[in-house]
């Protein structure tokens, strides 16, 4: 089972991407898409040794909605900061201690941080215990860390690491 279908999540995602690429739902395309999305994970199994497991799909949907809302708000915040006086900006580096352990969850968190209000993930420490975050205009680093942990890290932990 694990050999024939190493990534149960990846297969449907690849099939949907194939159909979107072709922009059609003809039976031939569906069959070809399913065949490709089965073959690609089997052939690339050495590249992705760990199977992705999503514990709570609904939490993932909720997370995505929150993220999209934050991205839109981030655009307005950053636009205002850029149009304002650049000399008044107080950029700073903030160390964000990580509770997440899985690589996928950490990379999703780093991506979310980069996409949201005035923050940019700059570096992951070698032992995966800290993420270095660059903030465009931050006077209160502790609130920022608490905010990120509450808003993004907690749901990600629930989704990808059940405990």
């Amino acid at each position, binding site marked *: 089972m694990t*050999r024939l279908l190493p990534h149960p999540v990846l297969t449907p995602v690849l099939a949907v991407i194939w159909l979107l690429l072709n922009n059609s739902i003809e039976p031939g395309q569906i069959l070809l898409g399913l065949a490709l999305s089965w073959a690609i994970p089997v052939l690339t199994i050495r590249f992705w040794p760990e199977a992705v497991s999503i514990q709570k799909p609904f939490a993932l949907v909720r997370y995505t909605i929150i993220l999209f809302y934050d991205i839109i708000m981030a655009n307005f915040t950053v*636009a205002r900061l850029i149009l304002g006086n650049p000399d008044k900006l107080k*950029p700073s580096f903030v160390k964000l201690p990580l509770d997440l352990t899985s690589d996928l969850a950490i990379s999703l968190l780093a991506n979310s941080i*980069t*996409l949201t209000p005035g923050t*940019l993930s700059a*570096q992951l420490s*070698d032992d995966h215990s800290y993420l270095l975050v660059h903030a465009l205009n931050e006077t209160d680093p502790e609130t920022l860390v608490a905010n990120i942990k509450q808003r993004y890290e907690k749901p990600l932990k629930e989704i990808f690491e059940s405990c």
Partner: protein
Amino acid sequence: MLEFFLSFLILTGAIFTFIGSLGLVRLKDMYTRLHGPTKATTLGVGSLLIASAIYFSAQGPSISLHEFLITIFLLITAPVSAHLLAKTALHLNLTSLAEKPEKDAIDQGGPDEVDTAEETEKADTTDTAVKPEAAEALQAPDQTKS
């Protein structure tokens, strides 16, 4: 009516993309400059793509969904490139308006006053140190399978 909505989306997209590019000119250092293109462009390009999807769905014979793929790929790749640029900037120890983190806080911090010869030596030793582990890691999945 549809045209008003589409022109609104296209204008919003254009304005945000412009502000994102403006950030490159107005902001003062490498790190703050990264903020403009990575963020202001997501909404900018996003609304342009939504406008394109609606227009071609209304005009063409079938619904056009290519734009959603572009959006997904953009949202995945833009932060990665920004992350790599920021990492490189830290490694090269570029000047920063923000106070830079102390070197031992982040293990791979920039080479402070290390000259290049020493640095390449270091890189060599870490390479060889990593190799046996990597080989083990490659073998490990095979063992679990059999």
